[in-house]
């Protein structure tokens, strides 16, 4: 039920983001979702790609610092309070969201949100119990 995500350290200087996407593109890796957290000095680029290990290897070989993290992909009803209903469940279970970002689905009626929790297993359990649709990695990589 978990999704693999890679995060890349990017120094805040021009061209670095383009370099990452170029390296991935040339290796035939397709980006499914991304989020960029930044400070004035550096950024953390988080990616969900169709070929996680390939992406990690090619980026490392180009000198990037890359980590692999497990995140959770949740299908959220695409309507007012859709996201809120899920956050309520997590809050009641006292599970903390470290960060989250949205995943744009090409079609369909639901939105997909990527979450990083302090307690990944617990979050998956609670969400599943409450009938929230948690997506498996394989499905996410080829959306």
């Amino acid at each position, binding site marked *: 039920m978990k999704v693999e995500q890679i995060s890349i350290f990017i120094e805040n200087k021009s061209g670095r983001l383009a370099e990452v996407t170029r390296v991935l593109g040339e290796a035939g890796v397709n980006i499914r979702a991304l989020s960029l*957290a930044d400070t004035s000095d*550096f950024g953390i680029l988080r990616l969900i790609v169709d070929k996680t290990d390939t992406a990690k290897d090619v980026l490392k070989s180009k*000198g990037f*610092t890359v*980590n692999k*993290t497990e995140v959770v992909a949740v299908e959220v009803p695409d309507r007012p309070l859709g996201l809120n209903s899920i956050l309520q469940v997590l809050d009641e279970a006292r599970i903390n969201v470290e960060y989250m970002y949205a995943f744009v689905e090409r079609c369909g009626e639901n939105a997909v949100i990527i979450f*990083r929790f302090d307690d990944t297993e617990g979050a998956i359990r609670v969400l599943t119990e409450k009938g929230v649709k948690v997506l498996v990695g394989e499905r996410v990589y080829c959306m």
Partner: protein
Amino acid sequence: MRIWDPDRECMGRDQLTALQFEQLRTTLERAYRNVPCYQKKFLDAGVSAKDLRQLSDLARFPFTTKEDLRLNYPYGMFAVPLREVVRIHSSSGTTGKPTVVGYTRNDLNNWTELVARMMTAAGVTADDIVHIAFGYGLFTGAFGLHYGAERIGASVIPISSGNTEKQIMIMQDYQSSALVCTPSYALTIADHLDRMGLGADSLKLRVGLFGAEPWSEEMRREIEARLGILATDNFGLSEVMGPGVAGECEYKCGMHIFEDHFIPEIIDPATCEVLPPGSVGELVLTTLTKEAFPMIRYRTRDITRLHYDTCRCGRTMARMEKTRGRSDDMLIVKGVNVFPTQIEEVLFQVEGCEPHYQLVLDREGHMDTLEVQVEVNETIFFDEMKKQREFVGMVEKRLAATLGLRAKVKLVEPASIPRHEGKAKRVIDRRKP
């Protein structure tokens, strides 16, 4: 042009040499008798005070280094029992253990006299109101100038450092006429005046005595123009005494070294040979009158040149040029001594933080900045921004605790710091000298 102690400051070279010889012999004897470290050094070098037949024989005696002081921390270099010591100062302790120095009552009196000489040379008189914006504390700067100014009969405002706006208010209200601080702080004051929409004419300052960090002639011109004062340079180091080892007169042509209390030598830092007069090299100082903490051939690591011709002011003592650098890798950042190896030690204690780092020194406004760039790797890269920030904050905190100075830590991409063959070039200094 006033001279505080004309009998001494304008004495002929022959008379000075005779005085130095006599005092040097006594100093060597006392050091040998009372300080085990000197005794061992002299025995190892096979010399004794009796080998001093003329002043140039000083070159046969061994050097003293900061390492000696560290090994003998805290009181091992004292030549008198502690009950005769009436004041203890210390260096900032940036290389691990601080350097502890002591003064007997006579030492304090001499120190005060020398600072009075130096301040008089800069033009300070009993009519001045002296604004001392050095931090009071273990550091010798503030106390040295404080007592010297009082000896002259000036009115002293011991304001210490910080809170520039308040300093300006006090300068205006109390009519401070002489400013004592680091040259970079003088420019910070000028910046604040600008920001407050005030001109130099809103103050009564007329002279500044600046020290504790290297500064250029360009910086002097800027200070003089912006604060409307005469800006003078002075030199001292706590190991030898503190401020008052040397200071400029109003002709600003080098700092007069008070040679009746200190013998200066210039050596080649590589071969340790004494160089002929007029050469550029490392300054070595020997104290002639200090009782509690005599220093025999102390290697200051400061690179300079001495001039022996008589100054237009009439003082006969040697003048040293502004220091042009260091013979070791010490950096002076905001007046604090910093060794790159200290930073390295801190980084090495943090897992994942070695071995590629670089120090970038720059100037923001007129204050020095120190940035420590560390190459990121998987051990110190976190997926969560909060953790990444905490990591940077932790390293910054450890650096501040060791250096006594705030340094900014910047994570950079792997392999972005240039590699050098052999010795790494760890320091990029973008500050104008």
